[in-house]
């Protein structure tokens, strides 16, 4: 078959160009560490990378949300732990107040002490979170949760409970309303303490007065026990939520690792394979260049004199 001189050149150049293009691509893959340089390199994997990246980002955001949830719940739990301590103190005070040897005057001291306890409790009920929002006002976070009255305290919040998304399909409550904590179980803690203060302030000299005192103390004791139960129930629920958040966090970490691995498999270059491809193409290119030069330099004109 005839072959034209320009075909010899064109073929040689085309082959060399093709090999150079391949080398450049492999080199770029090695330099970026990525197998997929544009979606065209692997359209299916490129779309999967987007999906996995989104899952990964959502997972990261959920872990941020969980951190917020843990911090808010810890704040509530810390406050409730102090509230439980206060209620224990009140219980103890009731026992002390039941001592029949106490004089009216001495019970008066207890009443003063209890007034202090009442104020402490009110302060805890009006705790603010890190952003200055009232912790126990429901959604009305700018309203002071409780204001003292003669008969106890008025609740100024609502029944809103803030939820935060902490798992792909899990929202968790990160707040408790003042109503749940301080008026739970049909028992108004502030009212109970106010009543108790009034009982302690009343004189107990006549037998009727003594029996009224004892009855008042017994009522207060019953109510305080209910209030304590209530707070402990709320704390138990918070505790179990914190535990769940911990479990979700571990699951999130596992998922994160899984997504990272998937991403790696989808888009990372296989260095061993790429390097061996690079050296093979390099060898072929060198051979093409050498053979081109030697073939192209052959000419009959070299022998014409």
């Amino acid at each position, binding site marked *: 078959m005839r072959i034209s001189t*320009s075909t010899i050149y064109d073929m040689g150049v085309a082959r060399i160009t093709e090999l150079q293009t391949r080398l450049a691509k492999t080199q770029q893959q090695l330099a970026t560490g990525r197998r997929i340089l544009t979606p065209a390199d692997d359209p299916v994997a490129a779309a999967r990378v987007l999906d996995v990246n989104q899952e990964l980002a959502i997972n990261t955001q959920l872990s941020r949300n969980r951190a917020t949830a843990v911090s808010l719940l810890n704040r509530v739990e810390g406050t409730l732990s102090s509230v439980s301590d206060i209620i224990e103190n009140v219980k103890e005070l009731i026992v002390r107040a039941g001592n029949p040897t106490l004089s009216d005057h001495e019970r008066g001291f207890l009443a003063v002490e209890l007034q202090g306890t009442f104020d402490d409790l009110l302060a805890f009920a009006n705790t603010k979170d890190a*952003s200055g929002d009232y912790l126990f006002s*429901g*959604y009305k976070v700018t309203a002071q949760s409780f204001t003292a009255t003669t008969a106890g305290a008025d609740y100024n919040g609502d029944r809103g409970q803030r*939820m935060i998304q902490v798992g792909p399909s899990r929202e968790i409550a990160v707040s408790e309303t003042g109503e749940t904590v301080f008026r739970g179980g049909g028992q108004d803690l502030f009212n109970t303490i106010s009543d108790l203060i009034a009982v302690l302030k009343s004189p107990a000299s006549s037998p009727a007065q003594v029996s009224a005192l004892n009855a008042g103390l017994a009522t207060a004791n019953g109510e305080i026990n209910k209030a304590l139960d209530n707070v402990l129930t709320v704390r138990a629920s918070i505790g179990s939520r914190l535990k769940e958040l911990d479990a979700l966090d571990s699951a999130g970490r596992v998922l994160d690792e899984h997504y990272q691995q998937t991403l790696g498999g989808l888009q990372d270059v296989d260095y061993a394979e790429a390097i061996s491809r690079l050296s093979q193409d390099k060898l072929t290119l060198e051979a093409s260049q050498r053979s081109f030069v030697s073939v192209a330099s052959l000419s009959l004109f070299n022998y014409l004199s």
Partner: protein
Amino acid sequence: MASNNLSIGQSALAAAQAGMATAGHNIANASTPGYSRQVVVQSAAPPQEFGYGYVGRGTEIETVKRIYSDFLGKQVAAAQSSKAELDSYYTQIRQIDNLLADSSAGLSPALQDFFNGVQDVASNPTSTASRQSMLSAGEALAGRFRLLDRRLDEIRQGVNSEITTSVGAITSYAQQLAQLNDAIQRAEGSSHGNPPNDLLDRRDLLIADLSEEIKATVVKQDGGMYNVFIGNGLPLVVGAQAYGLKAGPSQSDPTRVEAYYNGNGVTTAVSEESLAGGRLGGLLGFRATMLDSAQNSLGRIALGLAASFNAQHMLGRDINGYQGTAFFTVGDPLASASAANTSGAQILPRVLDANAMTTSNYSLRYDGSQYVLTRLNDGVTQTFASLPQSVDGVALELVDPGIPPLAGDQFLIRPTAAGASNFAVALKDPARIAASLEGEVGDNRNALLLAKLQGTKSLAQGTATYEGAYGQLVSLIGNKTHESEVTRAAAETTLSEAVKAQQAESGVNLDEEAAKLLLYQQAYQAAGRYMQIANQVFDVLLRLGD
């Protein structure tokens, strides 16, 4: 006899000279594009009868011809046409592919950041910092939509200017072909039908060049003229007469450059589908199938996001307890009346249900009694007797029912084309974010509902999330780019095989020409020597009288 000997020698010298000149011409044009090697066709001169038999009278040059095969030429032109089409398609789609390639520059990260911002507001609804960062992430997302859309617009501008260039080249080739047709006919006429080889080569090269711009059909006329047709049989060159194409804005969309056919002073629009092959075919095909669809897909995500996010946002209340307002603004659907319409009717399209919208454009035609709506992606048509109507989530009505269309009026409706280009955040004040349902500052319920929209399949008839729809776009462009990469490589192989076959027939081989030079050199030397001998023989006769 002596004079006969000398004339034989002279014919041999002349033939050898012509042979050497032709070999030299071949060598000189070895790398001239479109050049076909030429050979001297030589034959023995008619002999003379002398009673005892015929005595030869030397040699004659019949003609100088080029070695050229019409069949191979056609194959090269066809291969060139499809390679050029795939090349221009690939060059264009590659730009979108690269645009979407960088996972940090695409829409995904901006979308994700925005919804992270929404989640942060849900976690800290009273925090102004969280609200501000959600607004900023919204601005960044809007900026990303507009940036991607602007890049697609730049690609569109590039396509427009390339169409103009290509159409200009086609017209120029047509004129040159017509001139060459004429020149070739004249040259043949003045040379008793001998072929003007180099002019023929130039004409065939022009056909190959034209084929790179558009697929052309060549019909050889009696007398050797080429008649050239493009598209659905549009005559581009008839004998010495050239017709041309002209680029101009589309009648229904002034931002879109289209090809118009210029025949005998009448200019008519040429349908895009009919102009296949070549660079022009590739550009038109890319714009119709990929560019429009990419821009519309992006626009649909913008419209869908705005529609569902705004709807949920408007159900909530802001930090001061006021009812929520639209969070995003978005580009409305576009409708344009053709410049050729006889009435002043205008169509107003509105989004009814973003979930039902497609990524297609639509053409609406009024035929005098009813409207015919064609979905351009798949050609599905619907007819209705009157407006308003709602189709694929879009309501269509007349801007002014008092100005109805007239028969033959046409409108182009592009529901999603401008969605991304005008996407913006409407809210400026972080306090206006409607995170609550009932207006209490600590109420985050609406923010939670807004955050959930990220995972809601609210596009393409409930089959795709925003992110999913974007993923589909990336995958579509990736697949099409990959596909055109592969078919382009195949077309390249076909072309190089066709060129190789043509070159094997018509190309110059320098070694071959060197051998011919040796041959003709020897023939020339032999003829000279022969003439010397003939002269000496004649001298013998002259000296007889001495």
